[in-house]
């Protein structure tokens, strides 16, 4: 543990010395050449999201990330709805800020379930180039509020208490950039819903997120993610969330196109409340757009 702390301290301090020398390009180059060999691995993933899942990445120092997530309707809605493009879309708008490049907080609004979310993300460990730290670890904690009014079950209001609208997600995100092209990530996840519907339902649900990306060129990568349910948690029929996509990087933008069977897009919705399945052709087209601003 001491060693890890020492290394992370070294990494932080080296990052600070780097940023202090950005006036003269030559000085910067020299600074780069002189930095110790044990520098952190960068760009394990292109953005803070892979498809729906969080990645270990957080925004850089003083960065404001404006994100648009959009999911269309399901493919199996047929020709009448142009295979989902016509209707029933969901969208999330988010603003995510990081001051020091390690801690990030974000706010978002999702149209599905009229949900407001807030999250904190902290880069605990960074994989180092020398291999002394083989993995990157990021902690994630999110809170979500369902804003739908007038929901009734058998004529009784579903949300009798304000607290019943809330749900929470805690994650430990672990990733490794195996080589220049391939990165993999696993994410033990707890999803907690304050209110569940059926007697046998569990408020806590446990998942293992599995994700990876493979670069096919400098600016594009193929992405894949799966959220495996570890224990049954609901009598209602929910499916594991799976997505396959394409990352395209253009300047300050990261554009992500994908197919996923999740209608929601935040962690609680995708892991625990995905109600359409790939087997029924319930997958849908979606995209994320990320625009980074430096403040």
């Amino acid at each position, binding site marked *: 543990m001491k060693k890890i*702390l020492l290394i992370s301290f070294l990494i932080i301090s080296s990052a600070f010395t780097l940023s202090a020398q950005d006036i003269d390009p030559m000085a910067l180059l020299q600074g780069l050449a002189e930095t110790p060999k044990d520098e952190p691995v960068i760009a394990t993933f292109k953005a803070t999201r892979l498809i729906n899942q969080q990645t270990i990445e957080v925004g850089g120092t003083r960065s404001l990330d404006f994100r648009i997530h959009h999911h269309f*309707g*399901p493919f*199996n*809605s*047929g*020709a*009448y*709805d142009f295979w989902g493009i*016509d*209707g*029933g*879309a*969901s969208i999330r708008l988010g603003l995510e800020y990081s001051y020091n490049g390690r*801690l990030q907080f974000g706010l978002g609004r999702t*149209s*599905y379930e009229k949900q407001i979310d807030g999250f*904190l993300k*902290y880069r*605990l460990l960074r994989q180092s180039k020398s291999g002394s730290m083989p993995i990157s670890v990021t*902690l994630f*904690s*999110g*809170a979500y509020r369902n804003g739908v009014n007038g929901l*009734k*079950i*058998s*004529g*009784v209001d*579903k949300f*009798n*208490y304000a*607290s*019943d609208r*809330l749900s*929470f997600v*805690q994650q430990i995100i672990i990733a490794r950039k195996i080589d220049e092209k391939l990165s993999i990530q696993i994410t033990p996840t707890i999803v*907690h819903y*304050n*209110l*569940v*519907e*059926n*007697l046998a*339902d569990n*408020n806590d649900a446990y998942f293992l997120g599995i994700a990876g990306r493979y670069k096919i060129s400098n600016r594009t990568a193929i992405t894949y993610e799966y959220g495996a349910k570890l224990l049954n948690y609901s009598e209602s029929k929910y499916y594991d969330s799976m997505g396959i996509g394409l990352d395209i990087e253009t300047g300050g933008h990261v554009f992500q196109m994908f197919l996923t069977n999740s*209608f*929601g897009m935040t962690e609680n919705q995708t892991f625990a409340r995905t*109600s*359409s399945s790939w087997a029924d052709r319930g997958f849908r087209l979606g995209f994320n757009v990320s625009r980074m601003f430096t403040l």
Partner: protein
Amino acid sequence: MKKVFSILIIAASFLSACYYDNFRELNPFLEEAVCDTASTTTISFAAQVVPILQNQCSTGSAGCHSSNSGRDLSSHTGVTNTYSGAKLLSSIIWDGNASQMPKGSGAKIDDCSIKTIELWINQGKLNN
């Protein structure tokens, strides 16, 4: 290390609003929805179909399927005149022949409600 602790404390504060509520436990005297849709029973429009439409289809005064919306599902005349039985059914079973309802919900209405409406249509859309 201090930093890490402060993060953990912030993260833990999220947990303080944590409840373990269960809708069925909060409402123990709620009548269990009995799915009485054996093909021999006659479905009552007023008692069985109307509650489903009211809860699921936004039939209120300014709703998507109110009486003056042009997509009326608020009364028997509205339901029978606006949509054919096949289209009504397609929209809730999501077979691809009609726009999926409820719009934008991401999930179908419950199986019992679908069965009830299907049976009501098959029995000739009675106004009883």
